[in-house]
């Protein structure tokens, strides 16, 4: 018995070599697919994207032709969700609007995540004066409630008579202006907490270069948080876009979005007698945003368990 030494552990019967090296990503993925609700959320989101981007290709009504003979027709086999006041197919319009709404949501998310995380990383990693400037700017933007700010910006767009074909891009910009400060703040907080981790102290002791510390050690730990925020952000952006468009301050007709489609049905007659005009876009907003949030919460649970709200 006494022949066993510390070195004997070199041959220790540690768990047999597993065939795959499970990275945290793979682990998270496996946990995610066990979360039924999150998977459902993902399926709904994926379905919305697929339907909006592929669906209209199979529709015979994509030319937006005005057809007075088919005004405000109730759903039928020919027009599954009926037609609107100008005789256009509502289903096709909803899908086309979805393209715009989802694109706006996605693009403004990408933009605000890019700007927010870049500024957040700079503030959190270098601290000092850069931190002060960035965070005070973020604070300033955060003190103004987003919706009124967006209204003012939207009103300015109308005032300056920005051509409708550009408005979509400007709305994306507006939404990312509103989106980046909270994001930058979260990223900065995460950076500050990561900096203090013992494994970051280890990189100092090892004398690693700054570049490696940042790209190999800090950023990989930041990505999960970013994915979660980004996902939840899309939902928010879609909502904001709908609200803006509903008030006629965002993307304008004839470019359809879910928001301005509801706006078009914004009168007592349509509300009561032509529910197929506003229920489909309304339901689309509702389903998409809920699904994104459920999926995002699921992601948060597997990627970033400590950040639960």
């Amino acid at each position: 018995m006494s022949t066993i030494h510390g070195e004997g552990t070199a041959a220790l019967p540690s768990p047999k070599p597993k065939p795959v090296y499970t990275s945290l990503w793979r682990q998270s993925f496996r946990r995610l697919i066990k979360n039924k609700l999150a998977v459902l959320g993902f399926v709904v989101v994926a379905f919305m994207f697929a339907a909006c981007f592929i669906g209209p290709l199979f529709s015979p009504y994509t030319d937006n032709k005005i057809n007075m003979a088919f005004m405000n027709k109730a759903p039928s086999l020919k027009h599954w969700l009926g037609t609107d006041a100008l005789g256009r197919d509502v289903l096709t319009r909803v899908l086309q609007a979805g393209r715009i709404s989802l694109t706006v949501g996605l693009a403004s998310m990408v933009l605000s995540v890019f700007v927010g995380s870049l500024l957040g990383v700079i503030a959190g990693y270098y601290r000092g004066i850069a931190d002060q400037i960035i965070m005070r700017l973020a604070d300033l933007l955060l003190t103004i409630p987003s919706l009124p700010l967006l209204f003012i910006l939207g009103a300015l767009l109308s005032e300056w008579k920005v051509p409708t074909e550009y408005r979509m891009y400007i709305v994306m910009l507006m939404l990312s202006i509103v989106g980046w400060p909270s994001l930058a703040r979260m990223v900065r907080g995460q950076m500050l907490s990561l900096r203090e981790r013992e494994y970051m102290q280890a990189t100092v002791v090892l004398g690693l270069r700054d570049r490696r510390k940042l790209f190999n050690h800090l950023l990989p730990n930041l990505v999960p948080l970013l994915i979660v925020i980004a996902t939840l952000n899309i939902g928010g952006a879609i909502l904001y876009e709908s609200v803006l468009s509903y008030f006629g301050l965002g993307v304008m007709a004839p470019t359809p979005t879910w928001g301005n489609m509801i706006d078009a049905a914004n009168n007592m007659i349509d509300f009561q007698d032509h529910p197929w005009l506003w229920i489909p876009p309304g339901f689309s907003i509702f389903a998409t945003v809920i699904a994104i949030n459920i999926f995002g919460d699921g992601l948060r649970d597997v990627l970033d368990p400590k950040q639960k709200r």
Partner: protein
Amino acid sequence: MDTVLDIEHLSTHFNTEEGVVRAVDDVSLRVRQGEIVCIVGESGSGKSITAMSVMGLVEAPAGQVVGGSIAFRGEDLLKLGRNELRTVRGNEIAMIFQEPMTSLNPVLRIGEQLMEPLMEHRKMSKKAARKRAIELIGEVGISRAEQIADSYPHELSGGMLQRIMIAIAISCDPKLLIADEPTTALDVTIQAQILDMLRRFKEESGMSILLITHDLGVVAEMADYVVVMYAGKVVEEGEVVALFENPQHPYTQGLLKSKPIINQRQDELYSIPGQVPNPLELVPSCYFHDRCAHCMDICRTTEPALKETANRQKVACWLYEEANPHV
């Protein structure tokens, strides 16, 4: 001596994403009146889960007591309803934990937290409870009791908080105190004070203590009777002197040999090779077999039963089976 706590064939399982963990697997143990029983084991041995099962702190759906009985003074705790359990818990059975900071409410004053159980279980008036609370603070060796009663947990050191926890635990004169690694987070000089104090209270009140620890030094100082756990099972148990002088299970032997002892220098420490098995990969066998120097064929396939080998000493090891040709 009367038996205060009689655990029979207790099994507590946890459902994890990867499968069912049998954290406590058919464990039986007995605590008699006025006795200190130590459960010793490493992390993952199930020693804390055993204690939590007794206190009813294993919460579904994560974990569940799936079998056995826990008789406290003849009454099966597992059959008690919520309210009945509540009157036992904190009153007749008290518990102290490793981290006193997390077991105290940060927004309540020390005195209030001490008064709570007194008013709840002893039906004391507020005034009487406060008087008793201040007495208790003094009894656990803290001076300036009045002042301490009015302070918040964060204002006290870890050692002081553990004293407060003990004061709360003994406030209702429990018959049984369960102490889960009560001194692990403390410095040795404070640990010595706390252990002395626990022993003193035991002598004075005749309560029993179920002490859970990984520190063999603490076991040697405190225990009357020792239960060694490994991977959810009891592998050996016995009276402390006999067990330390004549450990029978290879795990117990290895554990005792691998601890450096002051003033007994060795060039190289004995060390048990390998590590604790993954609880999800256990198959019927002696769970220690792959780290054991005496491993035989039967150890890999069949689980040894806990058998009495000497006076009050029991071991679960094939080396001591009569059928074993090696003996």
